């Protein structure tokens, strides 16, 4: 059974790894952009008749707001029509990123339930009290007034340098209206990461509506409405619960509105999903950063990694420190293992005897070895738990590298971006080499020559597999290998010195 069985195993393992490798290639390296959306300037055909935007003819920019990190434009209908990030980090193909897509609704857009009023709202130009705002360190306020005859709408917006804005809506007469945080940014859209809408309720529960899955619905006692893509968000937030309305567009992507008939006080934010920035506006907003499946774990891992980053000042170093931290936590276990290594040497003659006796039956050999280990309280094997513990950490780092804007463009030595693959393949090769060395140092006992061959080939297979993974992930694994080598080397040295001691005694 031995050879054939193992041959089958290695074929299956290789096939699985390659399938994974190609799937990754397809989904991540060829992200699907939704640029075709951009030409869509038709009026929105909402399934919900309540909220309808009418095509406005001549929309001009009425106010320009310039801050250190962004440039914002308000159009003649009193909406945010453009939000451009000015930092070098947000530069793609020589152009600064625009977070407001052509699709409707735009942030600050107000629609009315009353159809006539709604028509008017999309035909009447607004008045503003400032045409240009230069934001330095202090927030500044802009008043946007729209006179619709029977009702006068006033939006008093205070802009902050970090992308936050406080919004006060005043109506001269009670009317049912809807205000939107805007269509989700369409900058980082791909098939591997989630994008769409997020609603947080006052009891802390989250409702995440992914693009393509939206159904018309009203969610009561909501406190956050946010549209988000992989890295960016546009949101409205209030400590006082409100009614959130989800309206699917023609692609069944969710668009969000807050429904009200009275004056409202809201806080908004447009920009990258920086955990620190969101936290500084309100701790509740941290939930806007989603990491897909395993968000809870990934978020806590982020806090640890972020703490290490703030100590070290570099994300690559932070990842290395994380490996060391995990090792330290597991150290009591490792230490126990090292002690039992000592005893193991004394068992060598007995081991040999067993190995001779059960040469042809690996099952029985394994069984008798375990029995021997237990009798003498010496077991050289690390166990399944430490191995399995590494899996969630590894998965968590993968998620962070996928979703965290903080880690995007993180430089480390020759690597320009830890969230992308290593362009020179230095790290994957280094990982393969360290894996090989670790194997060489670890005492193994194979019953089967075929299994031994497979084992020796593993570093090559892993190098190929890891070549297209984010460099940060390969960095984690490589560092882990190096520490394993160090640990094994120390164990081997200790064993040698003990051996020498025993010889001297004789």
């Amino acid at each position: 059974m031995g050879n054939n069985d193992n041959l089958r195993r290695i074929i299956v393992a290789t096939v699985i790894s390659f399938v994974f490798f190609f799937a990754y290639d397809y989904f991540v390296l060829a992200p699907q952009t939704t640029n075709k959306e951009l030409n869509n300037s038709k009026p929105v055909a909402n399934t919900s008749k309540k909220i309808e935007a009418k095509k406005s003819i001549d929309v001009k920019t009425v106010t320009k707001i310039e801050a250190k990190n962004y440039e914002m434009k308000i159009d003649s209908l009193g909406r945010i029509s453009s939000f451009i990030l000015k930092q070098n980090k947000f530069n793609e193909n020589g152009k600064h990123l625009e977070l407001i897509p052509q699709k409707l609704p735009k942030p600050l857009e107000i629609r009315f339930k009353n159809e006539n009023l709604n028509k008017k709202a999309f035909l009447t130009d607004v008045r503003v009290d400032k045409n240009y705002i230069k934001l330095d360190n202090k927030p500044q306020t802009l008043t946007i007034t729209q006179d619709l005859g029977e009702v006068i709408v006033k939006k008093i917006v205070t802009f902050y340098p970090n992308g936050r804005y406080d919004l006060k809506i005043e109506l001269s007469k009670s009317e049912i209206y809807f205000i939107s945080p805007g269509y989700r940014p369409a900058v980082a859209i791909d098939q591997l990461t989630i994008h769409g809408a997020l609603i947080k309720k006052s009891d802390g529960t989250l409702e995440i509506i992914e693009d393509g899955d939206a159904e018309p619905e009203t969610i009561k006692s909501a406190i956050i409405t946010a549209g988000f893509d992989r890295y960016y968000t546009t949101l409205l937030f209030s400590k006082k619960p409100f009614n959130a309305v989800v309206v699917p567009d023609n692609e069944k992507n969710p668009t969000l509105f807050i429904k009200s008939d009275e004056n409202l006080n809201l806080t908004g934010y447009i920009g990258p999903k920086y955990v620190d920035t969101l936290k500084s506006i309100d701790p509740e907003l941290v939930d806007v950063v989603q990491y897909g499946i395993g968000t809870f774990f990934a978020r806590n891992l982020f806090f640890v990694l972020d703490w290490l980053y703030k100590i070290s000042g570099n994300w690559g170093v932070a990842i290395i420190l994380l490996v060391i931290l995990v090792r330290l936590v597991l150290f009591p276990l490792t230490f126990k293992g090292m002690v039992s290594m000592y005893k193991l040497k004394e068992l060598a003659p007995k081991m040999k005897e067993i190995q001779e006796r059960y040469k042809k039956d690996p099952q029985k050999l394994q069984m008798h070895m375990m029995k021997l280990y237990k009798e003498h309280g010496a077991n050289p094997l690390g166990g399944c738990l430490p191995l399995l513990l590494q899996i969630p950490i590894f998965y968590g780092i993968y998620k962070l590298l996928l979703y965290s804007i903080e880690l995007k463009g993180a430089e480390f030595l020759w690597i320009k971006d830890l969230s992308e693959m290593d362009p020179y393949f230095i790290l994957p090769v280094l990982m393969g080499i360290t894996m090989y060395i670790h194997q060489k140092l670890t005492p193994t006992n194979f019953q089967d020559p075929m299994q031994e061959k497979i084992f020796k080939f593993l570093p090559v297979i892993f190098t190929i597999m890891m070549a297209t993974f984010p460099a940060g992930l390969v960095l984690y694994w490589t560092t882990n290998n190096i520490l394993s080598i160090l640990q094994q080397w120390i164990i081997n040295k200790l064993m040698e010195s003990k051996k020498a001691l025993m010889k001297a005694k004789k």
Partner: protein
Amino acid sequence: MTLKKLAIKFITLYKYISPVFGSKCRYYPTCSTYALWEFENDNFFKAFIKVLLRILRCNQLFKGGIDYPVIKKNINAVYGVKKRVNYWLVPITDNKFIVIKAENG
């Protein structure tokens, strides 16, 4: 039933690729084999908890060694039927059995 089958499928798949990690388990049978035997002979939730405890035990703070799954079962004798033996159930006390996979089961 479906949960059980899913678990068994998953473990079987894992056992195919587990040589990648090298031999690490401190027990005989290994954690994955233990899990397979458990899921095939016990109800899903009991098996799940036992497997979880076994994996938690599988570290340097515990001695390791031989540790077969033990299950509770009421056995009704069947006479005169030729059946293939998949598992040997070795009785310890009333209704309690050690589970050992039959050689060619």
